[in-house]
């Protein structure tokens, strides 16, 4: 949102930031399941971790010993544990239009989800230019949205192979059938200047097409749970996995484009 961006500039002009101590309660841990099956060979993976208290460190060890299966058209594929908390198989490649069902058993708890892989939309081109609202450089992605059907997009940006943490998602509610040029702008308020795009950097964009439930997950995660939102009521994202876990399961198409910044 442009408007939000200008407001932010104003506030940061006058404002003053300080790291403070806030006394936050501890809470019981929950499982976090992140599962993906893509149209690329060998990319069906499920990661299982746990939530932690705010004051603890940011190491999230995997949860071992779960039983993980993916079902499609009556065929059940088991995902063996290939690392601590990582369950994956190279034998399952997703197909657009197909629906996949994930089932995870941990102890005596069961979690399940279904996701349908949409038809891929082509990422036509990407380019880098100085942002309209800033003197920093941003990537613009260009794609032609297919008319008449609902599409959901998720872009992941890598600068010199470092993933940008900002969530870039959009749907086509207002852009159906259009050639969309979307600037992936973000505000970097960290000390990590490696996130900013500079001449000579190599930039890679991963374009993901997912279904509406997964889009909703990312949209609500972005609006509610990044810790930085202006929302009056931050909240947990709407997960498409039943059983009371954090995380999501997505059958999605993936493609990439890279560019070297001039």
């Amino acid at each position: 949102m442009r408007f939000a961006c200008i407001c932010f500039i104003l506030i940061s002009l006058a404002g003053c930031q300080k790291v403070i101590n806030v006394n936050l309660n501890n809470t019981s841990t929950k499982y976090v399941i992140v599962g993906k099956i893509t149209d690329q060979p060998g990319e069906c993976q499920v990661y299982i971790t746990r939530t932690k208290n705010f004051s603890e460190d940011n190491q999230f060890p995997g949860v071992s010993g779960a039983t993980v299966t993916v079902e499609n058209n009556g065929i059940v594929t088991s995902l063996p544990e290939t690392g601590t908390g990582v369950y994956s198989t190279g034998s399952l490649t997703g197909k657009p239009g197909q629906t996949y069902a994930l089932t995870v058993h941990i102890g005596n708890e069961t979690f399940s989800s279904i996701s349908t892989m949409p038809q891929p939309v082509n990422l036509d081109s990407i380019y880098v230019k100085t942002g309209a609202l800033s003197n920093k450089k941003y990537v613009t992605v260009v794609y032609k949205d297919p008319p008449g059907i609902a599409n959901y997009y998720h872009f992941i940006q890598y600068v010199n192979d470092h993933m940008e943490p900002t969530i870039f998602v959009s749907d086509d509610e207002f852009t159906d059938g259009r050639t969309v040029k979307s600037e992936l702008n973000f505000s970097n308020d960290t000390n990590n200047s490696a996130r900013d795009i500079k001449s000579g950097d190599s930039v890679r964009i991963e374009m993901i097409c997912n279904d509406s439930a997964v889009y909703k997950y990312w949209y609500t995660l972005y609006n509610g749970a990044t810790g930085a939102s202006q929302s009056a009521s931050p909240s947990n994202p709407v997960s498409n996995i039943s059983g009371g876990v954090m995380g999501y399961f997505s059958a999605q198409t993936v493609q990439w484009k890279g560019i070297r910044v001039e």
Partner: protein
Amino acid sequence: MNKKTITTVFLALAATLLTLRAAAQDISQVKLTVLFKHNSLKHALRTIEVMSPFKFVARAEDVDAVQDVSLEADSQPLDKILQQLLKGHNIQFKQVGKNIVLKKVEEKRTVSSIIVPASYTAPEKYTISGTIRAQKTGETIIGATIRAGSTVSSFFTATVSNEYGFYSLTLPRGAYHLEISTVGMATVAHDVRLDSNIVLDVPMTAAAADLQEVTVRATTTGRSLKSPQMGVERMTMAEIKNIPVIFGEKDVLKTIQLLPGIKSAGDGNAGFYVRGGGADQNLILLDEATVYNPSHLLGFFSTFNSDAIKNIVVYKGGMPAQYGGRLSSVVDVKMNEGNNQDYSASGGIGLIASRLNVEGPIQKDRSSFLISGRRTYADLFLRLSNDTTINRSRLYFYDLNAKMNFKLSGRDRLYLSGYFGRDVLSQDNLAGINWGNTTATARWNHVFNSRWFSNTSLIYSNYDFRITNKEAGNEFNIISQIKDWNLKEDVQWYAGSMHTVNIGFNAIHHTIRPGEITANKDAGINSLTFPRRYSLESAAYITDTWKATGQLSFTYGLRFSAFSILGKGDYYNIDPSGKILDTMHYGSGDVVKTYFNLEPRVAAAWQLNGSTSLKAAYVRNTQNLHLVSNSTTSSPTDRWVANTNIIRPEISDQVSLGYYKDLAEGKWELTVETYYKTMQHQIDYKNGANIYTNEPIETQLLFGKGRAYGIEWLLKKRAGRFTGWLSYTLSKTERKIDGINDGQWYNARQDRTHEVAIVGTYQLNKKWTLSADWVFYTGDAVTFPSGKYIVDGNVYFLYTKRNAYRMPSYHRLDLGATLQLKQRKKFSSELNFSLYNAYGRQNAYQITFRQGKDDPNKTEAVRLSLFSFIPSISYNFKF
């Protein structure tokens, strides 16, 4: 703190105060020993002021004319002393509360000859009515007290002038002494012989600031002890003039937030919360027109330019039946009418804005005009920045108020008033947003006869915002608007000495355009029109104020409101998960649904003695337009949504109880009010709702109820060099909404347990006035994370309960000083200095959470605060 404890505290307090002695002393009861030998009268009066609790009010020339008085008195009553002192100088005196008003008598008139025995055998009644005005400007005076006392018995009664300065008193035949008083004006006295209906228009002049050092501020009109109206706060611009504010811009909406029960929504936010309600539950009226977004510049300023404003009245409870449409409060702002005697101009130059106000007669005594403008130049500072992002930004707002009034005949008066304001925020001419309100009001006052007063208003009000994007190849505009046409009729019937009746109706046609996108052919966005919504909001009411006895009075009334949703448009049935079950199409002229509500309004006042009263009130309010916002700050793009088949009218019921006491002969006022309020059909967003969707808005909403209760204390010093107040509010406000917090009660965001404000103004000398205010409140109830987790390599936060945490407590001290510059006959000017947040408290505007900046293996909380030490200076002039 539960309700029971609050009640107990209240009762304990009431019991303590009831035992205090509070009778105002009479001048015949005060005995003094004095010796004057060829002294000036001024010296003699000052001496008496020092020795007695009384202050004198007089014209300087009357007092200065008497240079030689002599008197020796040993323990004589003050009235006797004054009689002797003033003998032969044709100066009369009269005690008014703790003031003694001196008045030069014209040679020919002798008041004593008017005394005629009243006839008690023939109980004929006659009416005295008229309009109260300021003599110098011709402005009508709202809320002046007209007190009529029989000259032969102890009978007296009183009324106040209405919002057009009109008053009417019906009394038995007889001789009366009338006293007309209001803040800042010298009390006017008239003796009348009432044996037929009389029209008496009263001009008033500014209070004599004559006995220089012993400046007397009018003390006669505090809040009324007798009137059943409670939960009301009135302020004139004179009262708020010296209170320090941010950037030195006088602001009525900011100043009322220093009163108990009215809570600021925080730094950089013009919104406010009244008795636990939301920011959208305040009905904000400018000359009767609804102002949908009363804020400028992202909330730092209000839309009310102080130069154009006459007064402001805030109802926190017990709203009169002529007001309706919002749950929490009514903020009724009235513009000046314009000077019908002489041309004058005033204005000011401040750090971020300048103002100019011009007014004068169109035809002397019959008609006048007023034009008032204000513009900020904050963007000039932005241009100084090295950062191109900032220095290419544009950011300003302006306001324009205009008003004309015409006296069509002795019985008819026409007022035309308008407001236009706009905020502009843009970036290098590439993208921008501008928003603002427009209002226009035409009002016709008609006096049928001395007992019937009518006002008819036709009102237009509009709020819109426009977003433009001019980036090559991606050009589009978005427009959103809410527009009202409103017809109002209000009749006041002064039905006798015991009853005043208000009868009226109004009908508002609302058009809401939620959003219309116009995009060019190549833009990455489609042209789209969100369906427009039409509705008709109408109401009829009747209310009577009944002075049952000298001590007891009641107001009881009923407001009947109806809200019709009109076609054309599509309406939906939706299941609890937000899925659309079916769609109903309505054509133009179809009525989709009508909601009817009966809103009783009842209040009673019981005056225990001359300085104490108790009041109680019950009021029901409904609200048919709802602002759905999910942001911590108010945004110009927040959406107004009308009732639909699914969104029902919000309803609130409030009972309140109040205790009022004048202390120290009326120098101090104590007000204590408690309230309990319930709210039905409250609206909130679902977790993860999408505000900017073309889906029916109901799919994003949840419904529930609310409750709020509290006790408010206000101790005010009205008179003397030092004036000000201390306010304290103890309160609780909660919501219970299915789908949030497992359906349990939770604190509303604006729930603040304690809130304190101390405001003081001190007149140091003729040149300097000093002022200060200090506020403290419990931090808002907010949602903080209780844990964290990792998804695709990034850390996100885990939330448990809504609003279960608190922001840090907020406190702030502001200082102000006004220097009156040299006054010439026609020209006066002053310099105003202010220091906002004098001790630089870093109040939290927002607390966010993130992966550690220095140590990514940790997470940290970051506080953002907006202002510390904002000094400002402004220059104001008047000629």
